[in-house]
């Protein structure tokens, strides 16, 4: 269902207020239980033996010494686990995933892939036993770059799929007449762009605990964004009905998209527990979150665009190649979303796009905040700056001229209801007095002659929900208890974003009770309604609407019951702040508790309602204005100030929304300047799989961020017009930095991360 009802004007009591998050106290006192905190009687610890070779056949595995090691209870190899070909990213109802994984295979496809698993009475013993497993490999030629993997005759990494190391058939989008567009262009810009391999580095390493009971039922705690997908695929691979798999997730230390795959260790943990008839815990080391986790797809882009001398964009021709790593994971989704995104952002009638996704013998790339769009918009936004330079125009002016606006169709192919990009850009231009800033005196400060300052703008738009790739569904159940308190049951994961707080706000607002009276039950697949998972910036938009629908039904039932008790018609009464009252005579009232409770022979009410929502998609928008200092002697770039202007529709919880924006900017500064997970292109070995040499910006590195959130373009598909905010902020910051660097030193970079060495080299070339 697509809700097309207009957005009701209304006074909010709870929505739009930064209420105290429901998990604050638990988290600051350390009481919050994460999966890693679980200790069960008799629990064993599992560890994975990882290959130190990038591409090989396993000739033999000898586990006898490991099995004989005191304290070891079980060892599994490809010879002893079920051989079921399965999806790595099991999105239900989605065309965009690949069946290319086994729990353990007799083939190794990347350095770090698991080849065996051990369960022992302590983590130390399990770890020591790994060294006793002897694996004999037959090395196969390996490919580490998509260019090499795509060559005819390149070694094939998988037997499945379209062949030629392609993860899926090339994604092609054609609109208008591109050749005609180029023929009419006054000038053409062409360039290649390259994105690195940033890693989400969530605080909580992947972890799970498996426990089988006497009825052969598996209880599985795991740090996942998609507990129902974990349940579904575990059941499928283990050959169990869904009643025999219960997945639990309470608090999580982040995921950023990467925790929506089915991981090798999750199957192995369940199988080790089954084999030993004891609970087993498996927890990644930080090193493992890199090699066995998921990173962003490196991407090479060729982009050619034709412009008129007035700045009109008349043709866009773009080819994108995403590096999937050794397995498909989210490669198809990322390729489709990242490629089709390039139909939009800056309007152009004639568009020809081709996106490919290629296997390489490197660690797996998966979903990560920004999902393919970080890469494609980096190219679009930088080339738009180049066009402005060529035209001698202020980039703000050219971007304002070309941004998508009302009437333009979205990358998903459906019309966007609330267009906010133009407003965001204009708002930033106004508050910063951009014209004056752009025309400022650029002579360096004589006290710091080696420092150059620059300003840049980046734009973005991003959908909430994965429609049309996935036909999504949000569910919520709301119950009213006899004391007037309310329980919301949701399957949406709490990654740490505050989603459950926002959902409780929505329920309280719609129902007319106090925020404090709403409790949220989540993360137990045996209890809560089915959920698609927390991803695609959609929880507030999708599950929020479902929760609002359920709360609306419950509200009607409460009013009906109160009307009966008050002996009036339901239309005569209203409900607000936990009180039912006569509209004409507000002093005649009763609390929800009185309405619900037993009285005069009437038992307490049992009021429960479900909400199910099947949305299309809304789009959120942002323009980021960024100031940098470039040290021309050391090449260091310091981001000094960011003014992000976002339109996210109705804001449910302002501080949480602002937190998403600041966090996204921090991650975006990281991948633009310092973060890159480096794989040795000779061996496939990871060179910086750890937080010592994988450089995330920390609090001391953060610039001043002056977040501006507009509510100018609400989408009626979300609760009171709310849209997503999760992924947006990581997209525009990158090009804004690259454009600011150009403004500072007159050098264009088409790749990320832009390192100090790149800066010095470019300055030298420019000087020469």
């Amino acid at each position: 269902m697509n809700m097309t009802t207009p957005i009701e004007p209304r006074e909010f009591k709870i929505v739009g207020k930064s209420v105290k998050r429901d998990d604050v106290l638990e988290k600051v006192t350390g009481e919050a239980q994460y999966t890693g905190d679980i200790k069960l009687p008799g629990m064993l610890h599992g560890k994975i033996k990882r290959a130190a070779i990038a591409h090989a056949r396993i000739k033999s595995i000898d586990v006898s010494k490991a099995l004989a090691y005191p304290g070891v209870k079980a060892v599994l190899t490809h010879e002893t686990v079920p051989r079921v070909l399965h999806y790595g990213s099991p999105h239900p109802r989605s065309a965009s995933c690949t069946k290319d994984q086994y729990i353990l295979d007799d083939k190794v496809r990347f350095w770090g892939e698991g080849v065996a698993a051990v369960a022992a009475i302590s983590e130390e013993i399990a770890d020591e036993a790994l060294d006793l497993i002897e694996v004999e490999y037959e090395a196969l030629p390996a490919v580490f770059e998509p260019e090499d993997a795509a060559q005819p005759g390149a070694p094939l990494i998988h037997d499945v799929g379209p062949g030629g190391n392609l993860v899926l058939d090339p994604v092609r989008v054609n609109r208008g007449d591109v050749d005609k567009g180029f023929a009419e262009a006054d000038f053409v810009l062409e360039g290649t762009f390259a994105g690195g391999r940033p890693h989400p580095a969530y605080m909580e390493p992947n972890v799970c605990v498996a426990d089988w009971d006497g009825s052969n039922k598996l209880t599985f705690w795991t740090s996942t964004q998609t507990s129902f997908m974990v349940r579904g695929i575990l059941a499928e691979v283990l050959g169990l009905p869904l009643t025999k798999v219960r997945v639990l997730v309470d608090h999580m230390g982040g995921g950023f998209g990467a925790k929506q795959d089915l991981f090798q260790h999750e199957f192995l943990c369940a199988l080790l527990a089954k084999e030993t008839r004891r609970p087993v815990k498996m927890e990644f080391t930080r090193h493992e979150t890199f090699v066995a986790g998921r990173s962003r797809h490196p991407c090479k882009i060729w982009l050619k665009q034709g412009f008129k001398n007035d700045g009109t964009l008349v043709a866009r021709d773009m080819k994108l190649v995403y590096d999937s790593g050794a397995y498909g994971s989210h490669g198809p989704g990322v390729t489709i979303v990242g490629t089709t995104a390039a139909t939009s952002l800056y309007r152009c009638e004639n568009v020809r796009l081709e996106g490919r996704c290629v296997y390489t013998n490197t660690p797996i790339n998966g979903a990560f905040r920004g999902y393919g769009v970080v890469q494609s918009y980096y190219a679009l936004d930088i080339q738009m700056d180049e066009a402005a330079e060529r035209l001698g125009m202020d980039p703000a002016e050219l971007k304002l001229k070309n941004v998508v606006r009302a009437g333009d169709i979205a990358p998903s192919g459906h019309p966007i209801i609330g267009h906010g990009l133009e407003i965001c850009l204009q708002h930033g231009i106004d508050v910063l007095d951009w014209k004056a800033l752009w025309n400022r005196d650029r002579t360096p400060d004589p006290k710091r002659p080696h420092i150059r300052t620059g300003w840049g703008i980046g734009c973005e738009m991003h959908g909430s929900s994965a429609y049309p790739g996935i036909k999504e569904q949000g569910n919520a159940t709301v119950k009213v208890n006899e004391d007037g308190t309310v329980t919301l049951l949701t399957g949406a994961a709490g990654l740490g974003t505050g989603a459950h707080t926002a959902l409780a706000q929505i329920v309280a607002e719609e129902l007319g009770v106090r925020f404090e009276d709403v409790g949220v039950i989540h993360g137990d697949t045996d209890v809560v309604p089915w959920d698609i998972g927390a991803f695609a910036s959609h929880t507030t938009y999708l599950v929020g609407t479902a929760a609002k629908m359920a709360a609306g039904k419950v509200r009607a039932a409460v009013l009906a019951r109160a009307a009966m008790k008050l002996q009036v018609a339901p239309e005569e009464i209203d409900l607000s702040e936990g009180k039912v009252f006569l509209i004409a005579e507000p002093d005649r009232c009763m609390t929800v508790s009185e309405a619900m409770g037993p009285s005069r022979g009437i038992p307490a009410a049992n009021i429960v309602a479900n909400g199910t929502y099947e949305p299309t998609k809304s789009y959120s928008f942002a323009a980021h204005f960024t100031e940098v200092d470039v040290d021309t002697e050391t090449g260091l770039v310091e981001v000094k100030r960011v003014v992000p202007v976002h339109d996210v529709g109705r804001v449910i919880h302002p501080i949480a929304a602002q937190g998403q924006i600041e966090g996204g900017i921090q991650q975006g500064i990281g991948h633009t300047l310092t973060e890159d997970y480096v794989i040795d292109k000779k061996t496939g070995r990871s060179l910086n799989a750890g937080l010592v040499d994988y450089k995330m910006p920390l609090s001391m590195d953060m610039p001043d961020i002056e977040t501006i959130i507009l509510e100018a373009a609400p989408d009626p598909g979300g609760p009171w017009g709310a849209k997503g905010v999760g992924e947006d902020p990581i997209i525009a910051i990158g090009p804004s930095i690259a454009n600011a660097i150009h403004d500072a030193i007159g050098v264009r970079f088409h790749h990320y991360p832009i390192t100090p060495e790149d800066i010095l080299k470019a300055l030298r070339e420019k000087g020469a």
Partner: protein
Amino acid sequence: MRRFDYHRAETLEHASRLLAELGDDTFLFNGGTDLLVEIRERLRRVRNVVDIKQIPGLSDITYDETRGLTFGALVTVGRLERLPLVCQRYPNLRAAFASLGSIQVRNRATVVGNICRASPSADTIPPLVADGAFVHIYSRTNMRVVPIAEFFTGPGRTVLAKGEIVTGITVPPAGDTAGKAYIKHGRRKAMELSTVGVAVSLSMEEGVCCDIRIALGAVGATVLRAPQAEAMLRGTRLDASAVRSAADKAMEECTPISNVRASADYRRDMVGVLTGRAIKQALETFA
């Protein structure tokens, strides 16, 4: 984390004896900020650790105008960083201390542990080398004092023989004619290991440089001096052109490697830039 046995030493003699008796794979456990990480990351094979934190007499800090600043093996980086004397007289050490890890790490890590780990990128070593510090070493048979520049024999390696324990460090007094600086170069402002670190300690008399020592971190197997660059500057007024040519010379004198943190060429370039900046900063003491 791999298993190991923990022993607590009551005296230096006890610690030294434990080191000898427990055999290889036995290490002194000071702040543990290197040791425990190395055990956990499986970078070092450790069977026994000997905790020295209860040994009396290793926590003192003293200063006198002739001997200088002396501090014991257990003195943490954080304690020294906050010491007014260090802030006033040793801005180079202060910069190194304040740049090491985070507040939590500094409240645990010791300077002696930092030098004993002998990492080429260790932050406290360049200023200690430039200041000509001395290392006090205990063994059951004798005590010896080693100039810090001679303490290191390679990455992670020192002159310490089996059973020897560093008891403290002495930094010569900082006179009124002394200028000091340490500049750490990395990608982050905190929690960062040096890509390059440059320390300069110099003294000026009537506008002329009578002594200068330049120590370069993370551009060789150990922290290096730049003797030729120093020689070019002694007796000059440290004007811009002299500094420029000495900085160029320092670039020739270092022997950096390429790794995931930076290329050798970039490190060399930074030696040039930072040597110039460090000299300028050291001279600001007199401004």
